[in-house]
């Protein structure tokens, strides 16, 4: 389970960084979003990964996970979602104003 999480986080971040370094706004936005997913998954993992483990401690519980990172992730998801919506609109406005979807707002030959 933990190995699977680690591979998933690694793959998401790697793809995110690769796309982030592209020169067109659309791949860059996808990259930002993938990076965000990778980070969110990483945060969930910080509360320990385990199936069937109790999130709330009671007498005699030995197998438990920390629920707090889930609350943090919820916040991070909401912020990330808002930011994604904003940057999509910003990229569209830039495309209209500059007539190109290059991240520098001008075609580099």
């Amino acid at each position, binding site marked *: 389970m933990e190995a699977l999480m680690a591979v998933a986080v690694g793959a998401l971040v790697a793809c995110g960084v690769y796309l*982030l370094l592209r020169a067109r*706004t659309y791949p*860059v936005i996808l990259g*930002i979003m993938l*990076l*965000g997913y*990778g*980070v*969110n998954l*990483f*945060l969930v*993992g*910080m509360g320990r990964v385990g199936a069937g483990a109790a999130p709330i401690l009671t007498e005699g519980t030995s197998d438990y996970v*920390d629920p*707090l*990172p889930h609350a*943090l992730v919820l*916040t*991070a998801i909401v*912020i990330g979602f*808002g*930011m994604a919506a*904003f*940057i999509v609109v*910003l*990229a569209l*406005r*830039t495309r209209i*104003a*500059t007539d190109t979807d290059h*991240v*520098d*707002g*001008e075609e580099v030959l």
Partner: protein
Amino acid sequence: MSGHLTILPVLLPFATGVLLLLVPGRSLRLQRAIGLAGVLLLLGVAAALLAVSTQGGPRVYHLGGWPAPFGIVLVLDRLSALMLALTAAIALFSLLQAVQGQDRSGPLYHPLFQLQLVGLNGAFLTGDLFNLFVFFEILLIASYCLLVYGSTAPRLRAGVHYVVLNLAGSSLFLIAVGTLYGMTGTLNMADMARKVAAVPAADVPLLHAAALLLLMVFALKAAVAPLYFWLPSAYAAASAPVAALFAIMTKVGVYAIVRVYTLVFGAAADPALGGLATRWLLPISLITILLGMLGAVGVRELRRMQGYLLIGSIGIMLAPIALFSAGGISAGLYYLVHSTIVMAAMFLLSDLIAKQRGGKDDLLVQGPAVTQAGALGLLFFVGAIAVAGLPPFSGFVGKALILSAVRPTGWMPWIWSLVLVSGLLAIAALSRAGIRIFWDVDADDAPVAVRWRLLELGPTVALLALVLGITVLAGPITLFLDAAAEQLLVPGEYVRAVLGGAP
């Protein structure tokens, strides 16, 4: 009541912002009145908190009465109070400039301005690492909108870079926070300061990695080399009042570095970590000074030049801070106050000058005579002297404090030479700009019929007068900052105030 004073710098702009959304018909006149009243009140609150902070130790506000480390805390100490007061002052003058007409650029200008203040004040007050992230996001999203308002092509271009960079920075911030939480099981900075010392030896490299990741995020916000490339174009594209307000935004990064690296990763918690910050921060801040000032010498536009001068000044304030000695932090903070005020004034002034040069705008080329060359030239001269750090203004006092604070350390030759060379380069850059703009007049180019009334010059004049004020009051300010630095270097007091009980 006085117990709740600590949360007012967050609540007040928030309430003002919400109120501004409810203004019937988006009446600009009413919005301006409410916005200005809100900022004036905020200035009053910040002044009261500044007075409160000098009495006794850090004041802790437990939100909802939940005990730390489980609840969220706001902490007011001398450093936070200073940053709050500085923010309120800059916000007031920037808003006074904006209401002269530049607030027409977008329908939600005034509410966003207040939200920006919520984010700034919250970041300065919070005692919780995750809340620092949340307040960063609040101030960033407000700044994204304020930056691209007007939707001109250069603004949008700069906006895309700025937004993408900061989103990537936020991701790194979350990774660092997640790693720290995984190791210490807490997000409360005071609690973390205790737990960091108890991290098992096998986890120490991971802790160092997380600490350096945080340093990188804060360095991106503060525009330290090599993470400053976004700043000149973003600040040059923004409207003048927004750029003036942004002068305080880079200081959030500086504040976060000072806070986190004295409290959580300070030498008190772990000597190896304290040394870690100095080892990285000092060289990069020295490189920042050099690159910022060289950039200022090289650019062709006045607004962009101010951006580079701002970057150089960040390096100048971070170099003594990176030593994490009482004298170094105090000197660095004095320079921070000086640089924020004077750079805000220069951003406003650059715009006033550019608008009197018609099509030449802020390009440093031969152009028409500036319509009010006398008044604007005088203001530019005063501002330039203050930026370059020549006597008699606060830049000189700040640099003198820095030079004397770093004298006993091995870094002295490096810091002395770079701080002094930075002054020379700033003079070169600013005199070139002054000569091109005010003396290199093309007689065939008809002057522009734009004249500023006294009211429109007011905020710039007031900010420069404030520079004079902090020069005259350098004595009391330095005493306050010395006490602030002492407070920062004894994090036990902060930790006790938040968590209570024995150190």
